[in-house]
């Protein structure tokens, strides 16, 4: 009896512990691995990602226009002024944990910044850079 109840107790404590964790479907590294599959044979570069992130690409905005040049800091939407939470996973654990959301925002923001979709290499470079940014 005693053993069974302590096992049940332990199991429920573990279950509660798991439930208390935010339910993120994926980790940023898993997202990076998924992008890597699309960029077969190409290796990502955080340095190139940083350059890409901070440069303009022929249009009015760059990534830093909204996300600032410190991705671990909060940003502001360049047009609406609305607060934007930090982009670097070190500063915001929600970032890069949902592939559908990542794809949605890359599509939108690449269109705004470059006027086209980003290549898997560009996405991988940027995420590699963001993963190196310390809080």
């Amino acid at each position, binding site marked *: 009896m005693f053993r069974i109840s302590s096992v049940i107790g332990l199991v429920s404590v573990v279950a509660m512990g798991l439930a208390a964790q935010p339910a993120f479907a994926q980790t940023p590294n898993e997202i990076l691995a998924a992008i890597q599959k699309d960029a077969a044979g190409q290796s990502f570069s955080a340095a190139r990602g940083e350059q890409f992130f901070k440069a303009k690409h022929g249009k009015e905005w760059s990534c830093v226009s909204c996300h600032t040049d410190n991705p671990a800091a909060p940003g502001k*939407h360049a*047009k*609406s*002024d*609305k607060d934007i939470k930090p982009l670097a996973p070190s500063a915001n654990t929600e970032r890069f944990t949902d592939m559908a959301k990542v794809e*949605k925002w890359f*599509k*939108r*923001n690449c*269109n*705004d910044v470059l006027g086209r979709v980003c290549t898997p290499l560009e996405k991988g470079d940027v995420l590699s850079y963001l993963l190196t940014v310390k809080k």
Partner: protein
Amino acid sequence: MFMTHKKFPQVVAVALLAMGVAVSAAQAEDDDDEGYRGAGHAEKRGEGNSGKYGGEDRGKPVQPAQVNATWKQECSNCHIAYSPGLLPAESWRKVMAGLDKHFGSDASLTDQENREITTFLVDNASNRWSAPAAPLKITESGWFKSKHDSHEISPAVWKNPKVKSAANCQACHTKAESGDYSERNIKIPR
């Protein structure tokens, strides 16, 4: 004690009749709103500011008590989720059909999200404008202009960096996010 089977049809008939009356009353109210072509008239102050429009009785709330969760989540990413009652249905259809070029930004959604949000917006849209007057911007409506002209709002307010743009409803309408644009919740920043 209990209703007999014989009486039951009578009760149902009375109830149906009552519902019928209620429905036609509601339709009559809608017709009034549809008949009012707000955008054109409201350009001039003092004209067209009569009835429901001038008295702020919109016939429907600007934002229903129960909101669509996808609308709330998706439309508040870059700006506050503007209440469905701020534009007529035709405006929302146009806005939602052009999200890939949404006021200079790509705000595209999945087809499923787009359908769901469009339905919510159209179902709860303002019924004060007719389709030909449907503006894409809330600020282009005659109603907006008459409420925010220089008699109402000093030009200096618009230049305040805390306001920045007329799209920032919440700069002055402190409860804009919950669809509350009432006078008592206006606080113009200094």
